[in-house]
C-alpha cells in the first residue's frame, strides 16, 4: 500500500483521533514527518527536455506517406526520401538523418512518439506559448504556476517551510544550467532549484540575524534569503551525490544538452532523491537557414537535431549501464511546431502542433496518433492539425509514472484530460485501457466538400466523447460533441454558416483514441 493511501484510509477510520488526537490540523500539516508520510513513495524520475524556439516536427518525424504533397509545400528544405532514417517495422514514417541515436532507441522500443501534440486556439508567440506549455493552461487564461510545481505541491503541501527535513533531504526538482522555469513554479513558491551543468557547487554561509523588512522590498528580500539558505542547505547533499555518482558512457562534447543530462545521470547515480529534472536547449526558431544552401541534409535544424539526438542517446545508454534505466522517463517538448509550407529564407515560420518524444525502458515503444494529412497545396498559413492535447500527455505521465490518483490529477491539470497509453510501468494500480489507434474510420463527414452544412458521422467505444472543429491555424471554431455516450454510431449536423471557406479539421476524442478528419468548405 502506498503511504498516501494509508493516510487517506487512516483518516476515515478511528485510528486518527487516538493517534493524532492532541494535534490540531495545523500542526499536522506542518509536521515534516507527516509531510513525508503524505507523499507518495516512488523512486521514479522524470527528465523534461525543453526545445525552445518551436521545433519543426515535419522535418523531424517525417510523414513518408505524405511525401509527395510535402514536396510541393516545402521543396527547398525537404530532405530526400532516400536520406531519411527508416524505423523498424514502420513504413509510413521516418526520422531526420540527424537522429540516428534516437532511431536506435525507437527500434529498441525505448521511444514513444505522440503525434500532432498541441492545444486548441494556439498562440504564435514564443513566450505565451511557452507559458501555456509550462503552466498547462488554456490559451485563453493566464496561470502563474507550472504543472510540475502543482504536482510537487500536491505531494509536499508545506514546502518550503521546514524543508529539508529528516524525511526529505533532497531538492524536489532541479533545473540544470538555467533559471528555474515556470514548469517548476508552485502556486506560491518555486518547487525546484537550479544548479550549473559544470559540477561546480559553492559553500555559502547563511546568516540568522534577519531583520524584518516589509512591503515590496520585503518580498524581494525574503526570496533572496530563501535562496541563500536553500543553497546552503541543499548544497551539501547535491555535492555529496555528485561526488558519489559517476557516468559510464562518453557524452558528446560541445553539446550543452549533453552536459546537462550527464549531470542528471550522475546525480541520480549518486543517490539524489530528486523526482523531476528539467534541462533545455534553444535555437529551434528556424525562420531562416534551417538547412544549408545547397544541402538539405545539413544546416541549423540538422545541427540542432544532432545535438538533441546524441545527447538523449548518450544519456539513455548511460542510464542503462548504470542500472538506472527502469527508474527514469524522459520527455521532450517545444512551445509549438512550424508551418507546413517553408519560406524562401530556407526556413519555416511559427506553427502549431508537433511531435513529442518520450524515452526510457518503461514505456510502450511506438506511436500514439498518426501522420498528419498534408493537403495537395496547403495555404501559407496552414498548420499541422492537433491530434492530442499536450495536457493529455502530462496527465498520462503523472498518472502512470508518478501514480497520481484521478482526483488529484484533475486538481493539478486544472481540468480533466484523458490519459494516453504511453507509460508501461506496473507500479501504479490501474493500467490505462488500451484502445490504441484504430484502423477503422471513426469519424467522417458528408457531403465533403460542402457549402453550407455537413453531417459528421462518428463512432464511440462509449464514455466521454468529444468532437472539436479547428481551422487550418488550429483555432477552435466549434465543439459539436462533448458528452458521455453509450458505445455505438452517431451523427451530428454541423452548420458552418458564418465560417469562411477553407479546410477544417474535425477531431474526435474518445478515451485514448483520436481521429482527425479534414473537411473542406467551398463557395
Amino acid at each position, binding site marked *: 500500500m502506498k503511504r498516501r493511501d494509508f493516510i487517506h484510509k487512516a483518516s476515515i477510520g478511528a485510528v486518527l483521533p487516538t493517534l493524532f488526537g492532541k494535534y490540531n490540523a495545523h500542526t499536522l500539516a506542518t509536521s515534516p514527518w507527516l509531510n513525508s508520510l503524505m507523499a507518495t513513495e516512488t523512486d521514479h524520475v522524470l527528465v523534461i527536455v525543453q526545445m525552445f524556439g518551436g521545433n519543426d516536427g515535419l522535418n523531424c518525424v517525417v510523414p513518408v506517406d505524405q511525401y509527395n504533397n510535402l514536396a510541393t509545400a516545402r521543396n527547398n528544405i525537404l530532405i530526400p526520401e532516400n536520406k531519411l532514417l527508416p524505423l523498424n517495422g514502420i513504413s509510413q514514417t521516418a526520422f531526420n538523418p540527424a537522429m540516428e541515436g534516437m532511431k536506435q532507441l525507437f527500434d529498441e522500443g525505448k521511444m514513444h512518439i505522440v503525434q500532432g501534440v498541441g492545444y486548441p486556439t494556439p498562440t504564435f508567440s514564443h513566450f505565451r506559448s511557452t507559458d501555456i506549455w509550462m503552466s498547462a493552461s488554456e490559451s485563453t487564461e493566464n496561470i502563474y504556476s507550472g504543472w510540475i510545481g502543482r504536482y510537487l505541491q500536491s505531494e509536499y503541501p508545506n514546502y518550503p517551510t521546514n524543508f529539508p527535513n529528516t524525511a526529505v533531504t533532497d531538492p524536489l526538482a532541479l533545473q540544470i544550467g538555467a533559471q528555474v522555469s515556470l514548469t517548476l513554479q508552485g502556486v506560491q513558491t518555486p518547487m525546484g532549484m537550479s544548479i*550549473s551543468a559544470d559540477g561546480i557547487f*559553492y559553500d555559502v554561509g547563511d546568516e540568522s540575524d534577519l531583520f524584518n523588512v516589509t512591503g515590496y522590498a520585503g518580498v524581494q528580500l525574503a526570496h*533572496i534569503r530563501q535562496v541563500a539558505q536553500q543553497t546552503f542547505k541543499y548544497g551539501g547533499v547535491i555535492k555529496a551525490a555528485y561526488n558519489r555518482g559517476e557516468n559510464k558512457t562518453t557524452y558528446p562534447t560541445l553539446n550543452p544538452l549533453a552536459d546537462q543530462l550527464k549531470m542528471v545521470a550522475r546525480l541520480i547515480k549518486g543517490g539524489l532523491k530528486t523526482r523531476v529534472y528539467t534541462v533545455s536547449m534553444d535555437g529551434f526558431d528556424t*525562420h531562416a537557414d534551417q538547412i544549408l544552401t545547397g544541402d538539405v541534409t545539413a544546416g541549423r535544424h540538422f545541427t540542432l537535431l544532432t545535438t538533441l539526438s546524441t545527447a538523449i542517446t548518450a544519456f539513455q545508454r548511460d542510464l542503462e549501464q548504470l542500472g538506472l534505466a527502469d527508474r527514469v522517463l524522459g520527455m521532450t517538448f517545444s512551445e509549438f511546431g512550424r508551418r507546413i509550407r517553408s519560406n*524562401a529564407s530556407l526556413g519555416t515560420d511559427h506553427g502549431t502542433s508537433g511531435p513529442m518524444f518520450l524515452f526510457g525502458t518503461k514505456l510502450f515503444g511506438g506511436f500514439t496518433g498518426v501522420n498528419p494529412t498534408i493537403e495537395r497545396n496547403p495555404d501559407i498559413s496552414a498548420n499541422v492539425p492537433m491530434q492530442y492535447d499536450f495536457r493529455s500527455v502530462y496527465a498520462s505521465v503523472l498518472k502512470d509514472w508518478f501514480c497520481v490518483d484521478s482526483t488529484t490529477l484533475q486538481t493539478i491539470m486544472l481540468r480533466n484530460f484523458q490519459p494516453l497509453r504511453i507509460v508501461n510501468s506496473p507500479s501504479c494500480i490501474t493500467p490505462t485501457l488500451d484502445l490504441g489507434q484504430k484502423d477503422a474510420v471513426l469519424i467522417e463527414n458528408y457531403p465533403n466538400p460542402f457549402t453550407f452544412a455537413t453531417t459528421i458521422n462518428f463512432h464511440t467505444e462509449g464514455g466521454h466523447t468529444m468532437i472539436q472543429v479547428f481551422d487550418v491555424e488550429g483555432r477552435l471554431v466549434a465543439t459539436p460533441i462533448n458528452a458521455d455516450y453509450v458505445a455505438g454510431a452517431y451523427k451530428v449536423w454541423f452548420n458552418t454558416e458564418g465560417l469562411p471557406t477553407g479546410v477544417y479539421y474535425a477531431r474526435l476524442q474518445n478515451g485514448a483514441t483520436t481521429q482527425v478528419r479534414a473537411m473542406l468548405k467551398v463557395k
Partner: protein
Amino acid sequence: MSLLPYTGVFGKEQLIHLLKRTTFGAKKRDMIAFSNNTLTETVDALLSPSAASLTPLPPVKNYYDPANNPDSEVLPGKTWVDTQDNARSNFRRSQSFRAWWYGLMLQQEATILEKMTLFWHNHFPDDMDERSAIMGYINNKTLRTNALGNFKTFVRIITLDPMMLRYLNGGANNVLAPDENYARELQELFTLGKGPNSKYTEDDVRAAARVLTGFQISPQVIGYPFQAVFSPTRHDTGDKQFSAFYNNRIVHGQLGADGAKELDDLLSMIFEQPEVSLFMCRKLYRFFVYYKIDEVVERDVIEPLALIFRDANYELKPVLKALFTSAHFFDTAFKGAIIKSPIDYVVGLARECAVSLPQIDLMDFASIQKAYEAWLSFHNDTNYGAAAQRQAVGNLPNVAGWDAYYQEPNYYRIWIDSETYPKRIKFGENMLNDTNLVKIDAIEVTKQYDSVRQITSFINDVLMHFYSVSASPNFKDRLRNILLSGQTDDHYWTDAWDAFVANPSASNKSVVETRLKAFFQAVILRPEFHLM
C-alpha cells in the same frame, strides 16, 4: 489625473535612491557633485549626457595571437569596427566589444545614458555571437545615440539596423515568402505589447510582414559599414489590409523604390495606437520603479506618463523627467524593491567601492590589453561575472529580453536562484580577496566616508550607501564587533584609524585593513546588498 511631482525633502537618502536607479550604483563622487542641487536640477543633469559619452571612441583590437588567429587586417590597438567582417575573428572581436562596453559602464558619467542603453538592449535584443561583432557595435551605437531621443524615430532606425535585420530575419523577408518574424515582434514586443487592449490579429502580423518585404543588408564593402538597402523586386507591391484594431487601414502598395516608404505608413499606423505609449511606459516603469502595475498605478502613473509621451510626439526625455521628479518614484514603498540585475550588481559594486581601473595609453598596447581584460572580468564566466550570473550583453536569451523584466509572477526574483546566487557571492568574494583583476581596496572604500572616525556614524553611513533597506540592530552590532575586535570602547577604532592616517606603516595599515576587509565582506555578501 496627472502625475504628482515630488515635493518632499531631496536629501542624501533620496539622491542615493535616484542614482542607484538611473546609474550603476550610487557613486560617491556623483553624490558629492549633486549634493547642493535641487531634484529638478539633478534630473536635468542626469538626462543630459555629454557628446563624448553619446559617441565614444570605438573598441580596438586588444588581442594579438599571430600563431592562432592573427586578424591581421587590424593592427593591435586599432579599431576593427570599420573593417571586413571576419568569422574567424568574430569571437575575439565580440569579447573586445563587450570589454569596451563594460569600460563605458564602469567609467560612466553621472547621467542615465548607460542605464538607458542597457534598457534598450533588453528591449531590442540581439545575439552577436552567432552573427557579427561589427553588427553588435553598430547596434550599440544606434541604442546609445537614440537612447534619450524620439522613440518613433528609434523604432524606424532599429527596424533597418543590420543586426536586427539578421536577428529577426527581416533581411530574408520577401514577396515570394514573407518571413513574419520581425513583423510579429515589432508589434508584440517592441511597440504594442500583449496587453489586454492590444488587439492586433494574426492577419495584421502577415500584412505587416508584407509591408516590410524588400529590405536587405547590403553586402559589406571595405570602408562602408553594413547597412540596410531596399530591393524593389523583393517587395510585395500589393495593398496590405489591416484589421479593425487599426481601423481597417490599408497600406497601399508602392512600386519601385517607393516601396520602402510603406515602412513609414506602417509605423504611423502603429504609433496612432495609444497602446504604444502605455506599453512603453509600463516597460520603463518595470525597469526603473517596480514590476507590479495594478489598477491604481496604471491609472495614476502609467496613463499620465503615456499621455506625456504622446503629447511629446514620443520624445523620451519628458517622460523620464516626469517619472524621476514624481512623488510616486520617491514613495518609500519602492526603496529596495528592485533586485539588482547582474550588471547592476557587478558594475555598481565597483563604482560604490571606488575601485581603481587600469588606465589606457593608446600608444601602449600592453595598457590596452590590461584595461580590456579588467573590464571583461565583469562579464566573463571564468570570473563569475554578469554572464555567469545569467546576464550576457550581446547575447540575450531570446527576443523578449531578460525574463526578469517580464516574466510573471517572479520578475526580478528570477535573477536570483540557487545557481546564480553562489556566483554573485563568489564574484564579490573574489573582488574583496584580491583574486580578481579588479580589486576592492577596503581602505579606499573607507576613505569615502567623512565619518570614519566615529564608528556609529560610519556604520550608518556605509549601510545607507550600500543598502536600500534597513539593517537589523544585531547586524550593526556585529559590524561594530568586527571593527573593535570585540572590545566595547569606540575609541579603539578611532585610535587605530588615527594611527594609520598619522603613520601609514605596514603594521598600522594591517590593523585597520584586516578589520575593514572583514567589515565590507560582511556588508557586501549579504542578501540586502542585492536590493536597490
